[in-house]
């Protein structure tokens, strides 16, 4: 069953088409990778799905319902959460308060919001840092805090925008583990943008490849890895060798 369907979406900024006629489907329970070189339109596409941008053309459907021109907070209420490429924690709040702020969307009381938050923080192994101001967390933990905040809204779908960028190998392994557990333990469907080929090949069920705003390929990781168009556009000669 398709949870999100992106249909012929075009997003123009002036004369530039950041995304051109892209269509794909995100099925329930899968992890779909979205890859492409810098400037390929991945984050723009996220912003369209998430409601930050209203596409010039085309539509986004959530469980068959058209959600194209809804605002981000409405989409969040409908079960779509996201993280940002540049981590955006609420700087002058503690880790716990950060997560509580997003748990309030469904929690009826502060006690309930706190309970949800503590559980999520345990899940992302940030439990030891609940009283730390979020701006003083190291990058790896801030990336996990982004995920924790998104999870606290109790979404059905989570959009992860480069949740691995800037992490060291150990942190990457922890993060991969968390992403996989988001699906297995929480049953959340994931759409993920990632540059790390190792990560994307490891976690994704299927991959969509963008280049210059256009979809150039779609398939399983091994299909993508052997697709000559993708190799030329993205993986480069290193992979050919």
């Amino acid at each position, binding site marked *: 069953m398709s949870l999100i369907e992106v249909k012929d979406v075009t997003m123009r900024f002036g004369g530039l088409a950041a995304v051109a006629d892209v269509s794909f489907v995100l099925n329930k329970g899968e992890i779909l990778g979205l890859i492409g070189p810098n400037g390929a339109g991945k984050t723009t596409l996220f912003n369209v799905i*998430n409601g*930050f941008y209203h596409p010039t053309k085309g539509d986004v459907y959530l469980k068959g319902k058209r959600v194209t021109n809804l*605002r*981000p*907070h*409405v989409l*969040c*209420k409908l079960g779509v*959460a*996201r993280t*940002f490429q540049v981590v*955006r*924690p*609420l*700087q*002058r*709040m503690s880790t716990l*308060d950060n997560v*509580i*702020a*997003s748990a*309030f*969307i469904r929690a009826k009381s*502060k006690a309930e*919001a706190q309970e949800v938050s503590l559980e999520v923080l345990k899940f992302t192994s940030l439990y030891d840092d609940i009283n730390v101001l979020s701006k003083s967390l190291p990058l790896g933990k801030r990336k996990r805090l982004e995920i924790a*905040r*998104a999870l606290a*809204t109790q979404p059905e779908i989570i959009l992860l925008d480069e949740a691995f960028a800037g992490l060291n190998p150990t942190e990457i392994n922890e993060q991969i583990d968390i992403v996989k557990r988001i699906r297995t333990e929480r049953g959340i469907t994931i759409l993920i943008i990632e540059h790390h080929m190792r990560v994307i090949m490891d976690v994704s069920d299927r991959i969509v490849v963008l280049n210059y705003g256009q979809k150039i390929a779609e398939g399983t990781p091994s299909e993508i890895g052997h697709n000559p168009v993708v190799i030329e556009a993205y993986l480069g000669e290193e992979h050919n060798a």
Partner: protein
Amino acid sequence: MKKHLPLIIFAGLCVVPFMDLSSYVMHILILVLMWSVIGMAWNILGGYTGQVSFGHAAFFGFGAYTAGLLYYHLEISAWWGIPACVVILTALSLVVGYICLRLRGAYFALATLALGEICRVTAENLVDFTQGNMGIMIRERTWVEKTWFFYIILFIAAGTFILIKTVMESKLGYYFVAIREDQDAAESLGIDTTFYKTISLCLSGVLTGIAGAFFMNYMGYIDPGVVFPLYDISITTVMVVMVGGAATYWGPIVGAVIMVFLAEEIRSLPYIGAAHMTVFGVILILIILFLPNGIVGDFRKLLKPFKSKKGASS
């Protein structure tokens, strides 16, 4: 101890009228309390929600004129202005919010700045309705003594303090701060930023208006230059909060104490007295440079030089 501090201060202030202070001292204390209310009100919007307003004179003046015009046109007590404020200022805030809150950062500040000036010019020119620059005078004052005025503003201030504390520890408070820290992130985490910014503005506007309505009753006379000015109200409000500490419970109160006393002291100095606004400007620059979180926010930083001198070993 720290938990009971508000109660102790409140109790202390309650007995002040029995101390037989001069009318002048009582006047200063009343002004301090009134500015605390305005500062706390501004702090909701500017400090916690991060929407800096340079036009709070608009809300203050609207409150004052609500009270004044009720008295002048309907010939009822100007004290009715306080409950009437809740309705009038909510309406004003909704209109202002609808227009200005779609703007961000400096643009919002500029829009509110214009708002204050628009209100002043309008009040000056609607002569039939507002008496223009002749102002509105309450002929028979409620009390000659300051005691009751003091108690009324004390209770308003205490109420404001409790209200803000309650709000900030609830869902609303989390949402306000989330909006201040990052509006886009807040939006994508399910917070209807427009809606919650409007609520913040309404709270802030109504409380400022109540202070204005009190001012009308207390001073007995208002005109547009007194209640709608950019410097004496809007900028001073920002200063009260910046000096004391934005987004802290005690900041606006500390700021009000300092600013009211400073204003009185500087005004009575020879030569530079007339330039008290210049002095305020210099103080504001120094505060922003050295104590960006205000006196309450940077209290530890203030203590530091004293500590290191005493205990060289630590």
